C-alpha cells in the first residue's frame, strides 16, 4: 500500500489546481449557509407561533436537534448527491483521456493501491465538505444547547453517505473516459439509490407493489436515505454502519474490475 498515498495526494493536488474543487466548495458553502439560515428562520417562526397560541406542550417538545439540525443534515445529504459526482468524475476518466492510465498500469503498483488511492482522495474531500457542514451546528452550540451525541451521529451519517457516494462516483468514473458521462452515470446511480425507499413507501401505500414478499423491505434496506435517516435521528446501529461499508466495498471492487478490464480485451 506504499503507493496509495502518492496516488491520493497527486489526485488532490490536481483537484485543487482545477476550478472544479473551488466551484464545488463555493457552491456547497453557499447552499449550506442558505439551508441553515432557512432552517433557523423556520424554527423561529414555529416557536413564535406556538407561543402565540399558547401550545406549551408542543413548545416543550421543540428542540434544536429535531427541528433545525436534522432537517439541515437531511437537505445537505441531497446537496452531496449533486456535488460528489463532480469531484469523482475525473478520478479514472481523466487518466484514460490523458493516456496516463498506460503509465499507471505499466508501473509496479497494484490495482488496489490505485483504486484505494483514488478513493482516499475523494474521501478526504468529502471529509472537508462534512467539516464545513459541522461549522453550522457548531454555531448552535455557542448560542443554544443542542445534544452533542445526536449531532455527532448526524455528522457521522453525513460522512458515511458522502463516502458511499464517493465510492459510487469512483466506479462511474472507471467505466468511461468521458468525465461528463461519469458525472451523469454517478448522479443517476445516486439518485436511484436515494429514491428506493420512496419507491418502497409507494408500494406500502398502494398495497399491491411487492406486498408481503419482502421486496419493499429489501428496497428500503438498499436505499441510502433509510440508513442515513437512522443516524440523523441519533440511532447509531451497526447494521447501518455495515450497510455503508458494504456499499463502499462493493463499488470499489467494481471499480477495480472496470480498471482491470482493459487487460481482458
Amino acid at each position, binding site marked *: 500500500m506504499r*503507493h496509495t498515498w*502518492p496516488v491520493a495526494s*497527486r489526485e488532490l*493536488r*490536481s483537484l485543487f*489546481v*482545477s476550478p472544479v474543487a473551488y466551484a464545488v466548495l463555493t457552491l456547497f458553502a453557499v447552499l449550506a449557509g442558505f439551508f441553515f439560515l432557512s432552517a433557523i428562520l423556520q424554527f423561529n417562526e414555529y416557536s413564535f407561533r406556538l407561543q402565540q397560541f399558547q401550545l406549551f406542550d408542543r413548545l416543550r417538545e421543540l428542540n434544536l436537534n429535531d427541528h433545525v439540525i436534522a432537517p439541515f443534515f437531511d437537505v445537505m445529504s441531497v446537496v452531496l448527491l449533486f456535488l460528489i459526482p463532480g469531484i469523482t468524475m475525473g478520478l479514472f476518466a481523466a487518466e484514460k483521456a*490523458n*493516456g*496516463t*492510465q*498506460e*503509465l*499507471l*498500469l*505499466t*508501473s*509496479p*503498483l*497494484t490495482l488496489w493501491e490505485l483504486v484505494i488511492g483514488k478513493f482516499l482522495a475523494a474521501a478526504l474531500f468529502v471529509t472537508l465538505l462534512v467539516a464545513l457542514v459541522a461549522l453550522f451546528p457548531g454555531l448552535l452550540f455557542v448560542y443554544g444547547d443542542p445534544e452533542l451525541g445526536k449531532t455527532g451521529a448526524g455528522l457521522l451519517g453525513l460522512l458515511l453517505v458522502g463516502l458511499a457516494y464517493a465510492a459510487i462516483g469512483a466506479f462511474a468514473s472507471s467505466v468511461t473516459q468521458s468525465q461528463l458521462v461519469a458525472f451523469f452515470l454517478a448522479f443517476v446511480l445516486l439518485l436511484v439509490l436515494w429514491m428506493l425507499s420512496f419507491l418502497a413507501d409507494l408500494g406500502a401505500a398502494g398495497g399491491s407493489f411487492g406486498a408481503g414478499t419482502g421486496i419493499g423491505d429489501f428496497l428500503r434496506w438498499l436505499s441510502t436515505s433509510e440508513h442515513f435517516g437512522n443516524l440523523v435521528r441519533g440511532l447509531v446501529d451497526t447494521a447501518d454502519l455495515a450497510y455503508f461499508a458494504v456499499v463502499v466495498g462493493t463499488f470499489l471492487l467494481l471499480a477495480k474490475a472496470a480498471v482491470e478490464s*482493459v*487487460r481482458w*480485451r
Partner: protein
Amino acid sequence: MIEAQGLTKRYGDLVAVDDVSFSISPGEVVGFLGPNGAGKTTTMRILTGFLPPTDGTALIAGHDIFREPLAARAAIGYLPESPPLYPEMDVRGYLAYVACLKNVPRRQRREAVARAIERCGLRDVHRRVIGALSKGFRQRVGLAQAIVHDPPVLILDEPTVGLDPIQIREIRSLIAELAGPRQAESPHTVILSTHILPEVEAICRRVMLIHQGRKVLDAPLADLIRDGRSLEEIFARHTAREAEAPAAEAAS
C-alpha cells in the same frame, strides 16, 4: 535481458501478434519496424505488462511478466505512443511522482529526478507546467519519465512521431545518448519502435521487422546493409512478399 517466447495476442478472430519470439541481450539497441497496424504497439504493450498475451510469455531482466509482474514492470522504462503526462503538473513534480510509482527509494528520488532533468535537457523548464510546454519538450518529459528510475530496459513507442525535423533530430540524439551507459555502469537495453527508417540507421544496431503480427526479419543492421541495399528496399520487400503470398495461393 528480454526473452519473448511465442507471444500471441488475439482479439476475437483478429490476430494482432502471432507467435513472436525473440531474445535481446543486455546493451542491445533494437529497432522494431513494421507498417502501421503490424502489431508493434501491441507487442510493446505485452512486454510492459499493459496487456496480457493470449499465449506465450516473456522474461524482463529475469522476471516473468505473469509470475512477477511488479518486478518485471519495475525493470522497464516505457514511453507510450502518446506520452502519459498530467498537463496540470509541473515537470519536476511529475517526475517525482513517476519516480515514486516506479519504487525509487524516497532518499534517492531528488537525485533521480535531477538526473533525468539533466539528461533530457529540461533544466530550463523544470518548474513549468507540462500543459504549457511545446510538443518537443513534452516528448522530452515523456523520455525523462521513462528513464527516471534508471531501468535496465527502455521501451520507446514511436518517440519522434509528430515532431518537426529539428525536434526529431534532438530526440534522436537524445535516444542515442540514452542507449549509452547507465548510472549503474551497464548500458540500457533499448527497443525502439518506429516506421521512420533513417531513425533506425542512426540509432540501432539490430533490426526486427514485424508484419501482420509475425516476425519476418531479425538481423544485425550491419549485415542487412552490407551489400549496398537500403533499409527501405529491405523493408518494402519483406512487407510486400507477405502481403502477396495469400493472394498467390488463392490464384493457384
